[in-house]
């Protein structure tokens, strides 16, 4: 479905995110065979899709695994690795730490979703302390938090200048605590 066909007050997800997610799942063999073909079939990188379609895509993975958290982290990392090395990532992010600013700014999360703020939520950098190697991102998006942890890890590691990144949300699932060195 493209933008024109979607109801105006509905949240929309950009095709690049859908394709990135689906391609990462296929590359990691999380979905395989006929499922993999159906998974990616018909997705257009420049179209906008209703949130429900994203949720269906995500649900296909979530329902297949007893412990899906490590899977979603890995998918997030794979998405951003692909984005950086085979997509536009290199052009917009030079250093690992700056990915945090990019992803929480207008070019990141905000550029791949559209719709009412109450549904879209936000992805904000609450704390950034480079000297201590610590940052906190507050997320209220409808996306899987572990995938978002993976997105931050993958995006920060991709430029290759950071030796260590960990992102945890154990204490409060919406607060993604980033440690980097």
């Amino acid at each position, binding site marked *: 479905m493209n933008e024109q066909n979607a109801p105006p007050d509905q949240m929309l997800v950009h095709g690049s995110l859908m394709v990135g997610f689906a391609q990462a799942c296929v590359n990691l*063999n*999380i979905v395989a065979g006929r499922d993999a073909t159906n998974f990616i079939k018909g997705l257009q990188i420049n179209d906008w899709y209703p949130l429900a379609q994203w949720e269906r895509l995500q649900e296909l993975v979530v329902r*297949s*695994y*007893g*412990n*899906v*958290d*490590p*899977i979603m*982290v*890995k998918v997030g*990392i794979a998405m951003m690795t692909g984005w950086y090395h085979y997509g536009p990532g290199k052009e917009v992010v030079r250093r690992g730490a700056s990915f945090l600013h990019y992803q929480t700014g207008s070019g990141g999360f905000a550029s791949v979703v559209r719709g009412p703020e109450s549904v879209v939520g936000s992805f904000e950098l609450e704390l950034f302390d480079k000297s201590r190697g610590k940052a906190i991102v507050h997320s209220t998006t409808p996306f899987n938090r572990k995938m978002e942890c993976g997105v931050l*890890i993958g995006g920060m590691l991709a430029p290759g200048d*950071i*030796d*260590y*990144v*960990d992102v945890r949300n154990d204490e409060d699932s919406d607060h993604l605590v980033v440690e980097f*060195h």
Partner: protein
Amino acid sequence: MSQPITLEDVLSKNETELLAQLSEKELARLYWKFRGLAKTLERDTAFWNSTNENLKVAYETLDEKERELAAAYHIIRDDLEVAQSVQSALLPRMFATMASELELGVYHKQLTEVGGDYFDYFRTASDRYAIGVFDISGHGVSSALVMAYLKAQFMTIMERLENPAEIVEWVNRASYEFLREVRKYATVNFVTFEESTLHYVCGGGYGLLLGADGQEHIFEKKNHFLGLRQKPYLEEQLPFVVGDLLVLYTDGMVEAQNLEGKDYSVARLNDVVRRHRTLPTEEIVRLCVEDYHSFRTQDSDDITLLIARKTA
């Protein structure tokens, strides 16, 4: 003044003694690089554990499905064995008049547990007898059910009509709608026997009469299959006296192929019968089957071969 040693120098030169010359900053980088690798390993291990767990569940599910499938197969297998014994019970036994005048040899084999080749012996209204050989289209259970249906039709009419063309026509008329509905048809080779003649209706299948006097007659296929058309059947009459040999068969043997894709053929089967025509009919059948087995790679259809010699 020499450049300070960096972590990259140590790694690229592969000289561990250079580690002692690293600055504190470089040692810290080494520490975090190591921690980074350990963290990556931790994430990868968690990922693989999760996928392994998923595989384990998938294997368990597969195992359960396999057990269900095996149970279902067992039920089907049992049903087929019952069907096979039912179909065997439907095959005929010679009755007194027949046994006193004919020496019979039969080879009958269904491709699967049950099938669509069918032969039968009938008592006619005038207490004579008849033989029918039929091949119902397709194989397996559906053909076997049609076979049982056709047998019932013949049993219904045999004691009321005498003439083979009338009998076959009646069965065709009675079965026509049913066969059309189930999309089946059947070849028919139906022969009634008098004192010194036989009358046959041939709509598919094969028939050969080898006279004791050396004359041969190949059955003419002048008629249509059961269930294909509704029009009268034509019958032929031939002499059938003591010593004459009648051979009836379906296409199962003659259309089977060897490794080169060549058919066993009517000519080859008829030739084997000719060469051994003086032997007991069961022996002729055995030799035909032996020759067939030496030729074909595998069976591809139900098989019926019936050889009858007039003895009195």
